[in-house]
């Protein structure tokens, strides 16, 4: 389908931006119209993203739904978008979380609605752009474009210590991005090709890679630069504070989608283009991943603020993604991308539920909450299932991702894997304790007036996200073959990776079960 010479992916990315253009001209008094326009645009994006995913042809190599428009010829910059298997899944994730985020926003945001949705839709568009970008310039362009709208979103519509939190978050993420920019520009000039095009660079570096010494410098620049948003320890401190201060929908999309932007760029650029550098540094990253899981998990254990628990828990879960990335084999990477999807949906659900409670109770402190299940059975159920997903219960999507990652990383980094498994226990402890202290037990007098999500419309975002977690948890073969198709070329192009446990995750095995 080609509308105005632009394919499905371009329209998925650009529809929210077009909505921004429309919303700017709607007078600020017509809040409902603004919300409807926003919701319509992310619905269109969701449908298109779903179509892209369904129509992704697993028998073909290379990128699909490609659009390439030369942008600045003299510098080798072109508007080049397209998806491989990894991109297809992540664009779908982005669209799902965006839809849920806009839906939740339209239920809760009442102040300065116009500005809110302008910033939020820019954020959405930028995230989808990063996932589908095949040109380094536009990749960076969309990435930075995703970092900045968060400043006013948290600063104006957030709660608590929002000014400090949002400044810290913005400066931290921008610092990381600029560090990575040094690496990217160095990469560009070192390649000597004068192009920012990722497929061109891929094939070039496969045949004539950069010298090892240069790769060993470039890789950490890009890994740390983009790792900041993946809450690579010790650059994770922006995250819990930022998510705690952020309004619900912003936390949803930040924890659900933005963190995965960094991980994808690490795959697309650092691992793809700098394989030797990756092999040098990834063993260290595996240890940092283990620290992420355990350290952040133990801090989450100590938190008394619901959103801080979720914030630290998402930092902890990122450790699994980092562990998977660090293993550098097809199995682990497949698991990583699957886990990115699963965690994204789960994090969005978690923050949405906490937001629902916060709106009515206006407190996030566990000590003041308790017994909410009596008044909000639906929300409590969803929350319990989210907590179980977070802990890695089989039947829910994150389990599948975690298991595949651990299988893949077992061969590459034994002890960090063991520590990660230990982390599963830690996670289970604090998430289930969170459920017990918030929703179970006696109900204090002051919460007698709370109401549940009653109508179908109110329940859609929570039920939808939960349904996805369950369906993908029971039927991972919906996603896995597509992901494998995207992961395969990474390793076909490169030096052979260290040997891994021989488990053939071919399609036949999954189709049998």
């Amino acid at each position, binding site marked *: 389908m080609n509308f105005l010479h632009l394919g499905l992916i371009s329209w998925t990315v650009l529809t929210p931006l077009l909505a921004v253009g429309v919303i700017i001209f709607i007078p600020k008094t017509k809040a409902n119209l603004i919300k409807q326009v926003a919701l319509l645009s992310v619905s269109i994006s969701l449908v298109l993203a779903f179509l892209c995913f369904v129509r992704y042809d697993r028998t073909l190599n290379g990128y699909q739904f490609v659009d390439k428009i030369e942008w600045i010829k003299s*510098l080798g910059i072109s508007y080049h978008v397209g998806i491989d298997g990894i991109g297809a899944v992540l664009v779908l994730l982005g669209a799902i979380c965006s839809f849920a985020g806009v839906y939740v926003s339209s239920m809760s945001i009442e102040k300065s609605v116009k500005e809110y949705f302008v910033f939020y839709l820019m954020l959405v568009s930028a995230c989808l752009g990063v996932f589908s970008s095949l040109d380094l310039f536009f990749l960076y*362009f969309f990435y*930075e*474009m995703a970092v900045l709208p968060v400043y*006013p979103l948290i600063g104006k519509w957030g709660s608590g210590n929002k000014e400090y939190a949002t400044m810290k978050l913005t400066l931290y993420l921008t610092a990381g991005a600029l560090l990575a920019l040094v690496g990217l*520009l160095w990469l560009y*000039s070192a390649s000597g090709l004068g192009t920012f095009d990722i497929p061109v660079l891929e094939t070039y570096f496969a045949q004539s890679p950069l010298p090892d010494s240069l790769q060993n410098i470039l890789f950490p620049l890009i890994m740390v630069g983009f790792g900041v948003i993946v809450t690579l320890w010790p650059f994770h401190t922006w995250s819990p504070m930022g998510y705690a201060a952020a309004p619900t929908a912003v936390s949803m999309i930040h924890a659900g989608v933005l963190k995965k932007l960094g991980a994808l760029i690490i795959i697309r650029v650092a691992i793809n283009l700098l394989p030797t550098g990756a092999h040098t540094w990834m063993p260290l990253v595996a240890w940092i991943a283990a620290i992420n899981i355990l350290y952040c998990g133990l801090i989450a254990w100590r938190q008394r603020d619901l959103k801080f628990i979720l914030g630290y828990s998402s930092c902890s879960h990122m450790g699994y993604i980092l562990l998977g990335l660090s293993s550098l084999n097809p199995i682990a990477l497949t698991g990583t991308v699957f886990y990115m999807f699963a965690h994204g949906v789960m994090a969005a659900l978690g923050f949405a539920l906490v937001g629902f409670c916060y709106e009515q109770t206006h407190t996030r402190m566990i000590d003041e909450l308790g017994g909410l299940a009596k008044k909000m059975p639906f929300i409590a159920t969803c929350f319990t299932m989210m907590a179980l997903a977070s802990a890695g219960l089989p039947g829910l999507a994150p389990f599948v991702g975690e298991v595949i990652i651990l299988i893949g990383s077992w061969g590459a980094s034994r002890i960090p894997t063991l520590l990660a498994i230990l982390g599963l226990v830690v996670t289970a402890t604090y998430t289930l304790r969170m459920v017990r202290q918030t929703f179970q037990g006696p109900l204090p007098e002051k919460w007698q007036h709370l109401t549940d999500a009653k109508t179908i419309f109110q329940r859609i975002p929570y039920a939808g996200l939960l349904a996805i977690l369950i369906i993908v948890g029971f039927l991972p073969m919906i996603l896995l073959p597509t992901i494998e198709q995207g992961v395969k070329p990474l390793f076909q192009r490169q030096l052979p990776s260290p040997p891994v446990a021989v488990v053939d995750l071919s399609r036949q095995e999954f189709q049998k079960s």
Partner: protein
Amino acid sequence: MMIDFSWSVLSTELYLSLSILVIFLAEFFFTDERKKKLIPSIASLSLLAIFIHLLTRSHENSSTLWRSFVQDPLSFYFKVLFLLTGGFVLFMISKSQDKLQKGRDEFVLLFMIALLGMSFVASAGDFVLLFVSLEILTISLYIMTAYLRSQEASIEAGLKYLIMGALSTGVFLYGMSFIYGLTGSTEFNKIGEYLASNPEAAHSTGFMFGMILILSGLGFKIGSFPFQLWIPDVYQGAPTPVTALLAIGSKTAGFAALIRLLLGVFLPLSDRWALLFAILSAITMFYGNLGALWQTNIKRLMGYSSIGHAGYLLMGLSAFSHSGMESVLYYLLAYLFSTAGAFLVIVAVSNLTKAEKISDFKGLSERSPILAAGMMLSLLSLAGVPPLAGFFAKFYIFLNAAQSDLIWLVAVGCLNVIFSLYYYLMVVKAMYLESPVTSSEFQVPLSVKIAQFTSIAGILILGVWQGPFVEWAHRALANTF
């Protein structure tokens, strides 16, 4: 002997001079107050006419006055920038009329004269013409800076500017004398020919000394280290439209002169000044961006930030390549729209609050969404945030520095972007996150909205659709290498 004088080559400047005369006569004969209000309109109409006329001459490549006046694609580029600057600043002047108690019309006149000086700078092919045109520009700016005679800050600013400016003029002349003494001519082409036939002359002490002195004189105009001390005080004390003219016009004029000199007369010494500019760029960036972190006055903040931007521009110069110079030209264009947008809002706000502190911007998003949005976009563009103009401008400069093996300078630049983001976000924070002192709504006149939309359009278009403008910068430099 025939005078080599071509009416057509000099047409832009001649029309400007004509409009200056018309305005002069107008203020002489219009004694009625009501008629006096027409003068800014006369000025804007003539600017518009001259701009349209200039656009028809885009492909011209000729010289006159014995090659001391050059009209080539490079001068076309700069003249477009100057006329755009002129348009924005003239609008700001027309909106600040009540701040100037006396001599409002002479103010417009001085502004037009400054514009004439800038226009000649873009076309200067000879040191004497360059000197005279720089002086026309600078002296007009001295007077305009000190215009608010009842305010101590303004007079002090004018005096500081005058003293430091006079010093830099003397240095510039001294350098010129060395070059003249060594090469026998002040005309750029002749000097180039002399150096081509006597290559060792370029590396003689005298020539290098002359070059350093001339670069120092120009360094004052662009506000680079170590000639930047005057900027914060002068920017703060001057009337706001003059600050805008200083920030955009004077800086651009300095770079116009620099680029033409570096690619012409000083080309043989390129490896020397490339390294020099790299070091100066780093120090300038740090000075500007770190200095801005503590500021509470918006104009002083813009002063320090413009020092920072001079640093980025010097980075482009130090990446000595065709592409590097293109990136400087592109940056000046992006900088024009971003700074003009910011100053438009500062003028509008200071008209209504009578003060210039950042705290006056508190809650602007509720009192006037369009002004707050314009200010935010302008400041974030200056910080280098996509999808705004300043992002690609900085990216392009960093790219060229990386290509010239100046990775350390790119790292310094990136670090400074973080500093600058902090202080620009301070203003955004005041506008969007804090509540206003009084919640009265600003009534923003339509003309201000239109001016704001123009600057926003410039910022967005340059931010997203960079190709044609990169091409234009490329063509501007096509002759010079």
